[in-house]
């Protein structure tokens, strides 16, 4: 009896103390209505508001967004609808919505290469005011919670439009068990990948799997390869600056890797090579870091726990393309504040960490990378940090979509043997120079 009353008394004291803390915390703000102190809750009430979000389809990210949408709705009283469509049609659907001005979609998931076009056409809602408005954010929040080099990607002409998530880069995963069997030591550069592949190959197991589909995969991998060599497609002024020798080396690696890859690599996307590797069909795989989670997912993989990770490196230097996605608000949206409320909460560490283990996606917040439990769930975070340490962001120039198409076709021509690596590199250089100038 005494024990029980002791517990209930301490419970009451604890409750009173926390209430006091909350009350004090609220009062110490600058007079605007008290925002919840918990960083993991969306801010604001939007009863009856309907917000529409459009993104590409694909789990687990789609499921994660849907789940977050339901919880956001429960907390704020609004309704958030998720429209998930095939990635190939996303840009067209968004462009059609922005140009028609109907505001069908309040929240757009925008690839960096489309961001410039949307922003320059005035289709996006600026969020500077929202970021600095105390009533729209958790108390103590500031935009410096985001890694500056990533947040800046969502800026156009000095105005902030978008928040980022889905941070990833190109990494290599390799089978530790097969490496052991072949008596090989861990690869330290991409030339190791090429020399080790034939020794690892078996019937039904490719030595190396690399995707070659020209819907961005080729561009991402090329970007990582040239970043590791210290060059980039263009300089900070937006003029062509490609080192042709480095580009030739990059294409040559791609050609050699393609020869070791399964047939049909020209139409293989990250998904295809990763699924193949997870099913035991490849000893090494070059793929997007976000798909590395599949390798350890028992539902998808027959090779759980047999993988190690390394970035693409040459001459001791790792390199990666910073791949990310932008969350932006439609200028014609009828509920921009509700949209912001969701985005601010969803891009924060608490929400991102919820699906990161399953999705293997990185957040744009600094606190994500120092989270200990995450490091356990995502064994490739060290490799990712290495690659991101020397990284170039995916281009967001207005002229980039057409350039990317040309570059990918140049590489595919070399991959199919129609041209040589040097010719492909020359072609890329010429296309960059003629579009961007020097």
């Amino acid at each position, binding site marked *: 009896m005494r024990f029980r009353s002791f517990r209930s008394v301490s419970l009451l004291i604890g409750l009173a103390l926390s209430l006091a803390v909350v009350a004090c915390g609220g009062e110490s703000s600058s007079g605007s209505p008290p925002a919840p102190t918990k960083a993991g809750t969306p801010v604001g009430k939007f009863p009856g508001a309907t917000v529409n979000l459009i993104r590409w389809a694909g789990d687990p990210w789609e499921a994660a967004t849907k789940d977050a949408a339901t919880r956001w709705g429960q907390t704020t009283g609004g309704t958030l609808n998720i429209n998930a469509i095939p990635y190939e049609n996303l840009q067209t659907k968004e462009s059609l919505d922005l140009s028609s001005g109907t505001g069908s979609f309040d929240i757009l998931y925008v690839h960096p290469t489309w961001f410039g076009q949307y922003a320059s*056409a005035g289709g996006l809602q600026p969020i500077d005011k929202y970021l600095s408005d105390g009533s729209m954010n958790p108390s103590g929040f500031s935009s410096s919670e985001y890694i500056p080099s990533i947040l800046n990607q969502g800026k156009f002409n000095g105005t902030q439009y978008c928040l980022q998530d889905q941070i990833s880069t190109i990494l290599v995963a390799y089978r530790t068990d097969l490496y052991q069997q072949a008596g090989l030591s861990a690869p330290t550069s991409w030339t190791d990948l090429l020399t080790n592949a034939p020794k690892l190959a078996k019937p039904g197991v490719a030595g190396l799997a690399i995707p070659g589909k020209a819907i961005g995969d080729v561009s991402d991998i090329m970007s990582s390869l040239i970043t590791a060599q210290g060059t980039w497609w263009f300089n900070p002024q937006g003029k062509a600056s490609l080192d042709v020798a480095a580009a030739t080396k990059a294409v040559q690696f791609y050609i050699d890797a393609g020869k070791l890859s399964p047939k049909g690599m020209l139409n293989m996307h990250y998904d295809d090579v990763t699924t193949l590797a997870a099913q035991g069909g490849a000893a090494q795989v070059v793929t997007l870091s976000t798909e590395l989670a599949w390798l350890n997912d028992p539902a998808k993989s027959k090779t759980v726990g047999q993988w190690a990770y390394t970035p693409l490196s040459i001459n001791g230097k790792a390199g990666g393309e910073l791949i990310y996605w932008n969350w932006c608000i439609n200028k014609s949206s009828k509920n921009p504040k509700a949209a912001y409320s969701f985005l601010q909460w969803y891009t924060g560490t608490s929400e991102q960490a919820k699906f990161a283990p399953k999705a293997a996606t990185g957040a744009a917040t600094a606190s994500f990378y120092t989270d200990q439990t995450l490091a356990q769930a995502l064994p490739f975070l060290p490799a990712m940090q290495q690659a991101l340490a020397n990284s170039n962001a995916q281009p967001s120039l207005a002229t980039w979509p057409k350039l990317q198409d040309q570059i990918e076709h140049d590489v595919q021509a070399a991959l199919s043997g129609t041209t040589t690596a040097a010719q492909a590199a020359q072609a890329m250089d010429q296309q960059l120079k003629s579009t961007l100038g020097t």
Partner: protein
Amino acid sequence: MNELTQKLSDQGPRLMRASFRWRDLGDSRWLGYWMVTPAVLALAGLILAPLLYSTVLSTYSWTLLEIRLPKPFVGLMQYSTVAHDPLFGEALKTTGLFVVGTVSVELVLGFLIALALLNIHRGRRLANGIILLPMIVTPVIVALIWRYLLDPQFGLVNYAIHLLGYQQDIPWLGSNSLALPSLIVIDIWEWTPFAILVLHAGMLAIPDDLYEAARVDGAGAWQIARHVILPYLSPLILVVLLLRTMDTYRVFDTIFVLTRGGPGTSTQTVGIYAYENGFVYLNMGYTMALSVVILIAIVVISLFYLRLLQRRPQW
């Protein structure tokens, strides 16, 4: 009524009435125009007007996202770009290959199957019913079906090939050289039934005595086909040729869903190319110029066929 009104009423109700009646419309000289005008207006407004609009807007340079902004006038410059566009030339070539590949096989195969149908009694009705299925299935669904069948790892086609002894996984839609032929085969699967049904209908219309006469002369099946059926059917064959050419030139749905013009540009027909320019690169002014050129091309080709048709005796 007095004599005068009797006379007037004999000359028709119209003269008697001062106000409008539906009966008047029913017999007016203008009835025909009233009946035709809505259709003419609808088609002119939905087809002619947009085409003219396209032609006008093709003289401006603008992108999809800038649709409400003022557009710079560039005259015929974009047409000059079209003329010098190597990708457009490639697209024309790819489309030409696709059209020729599909139409030729569809005609020959269609003729043969239609012939075979003539020769069977039982089950002809059922066969006719089943045969028309590929034509009426939604093209997007046809694409879905074949995407599965041609999957390099899990598709039935490669499985069948494995059973026959060849153990490699053939990447049908992922190979530069195999993608277009695969699409041609898919179109053949989808539209040969059209040729079969039309040609079969034509064969059924041939008077029986012609068949009798040939048989009496001792002609076998092949000879009857060549000397009786083929000549009789030639205007119909031209019709099928014309219609299938026009339709295959315009094909879009299946290619869009299956390969999007890839790998590389090996399956990029003029339709896909126009779509990419307009809705992926968002370069609308240029796309409109492209469309005009594409349209002129198909009109010229179609008129050529029509001329051929007109020279033939009417069936």
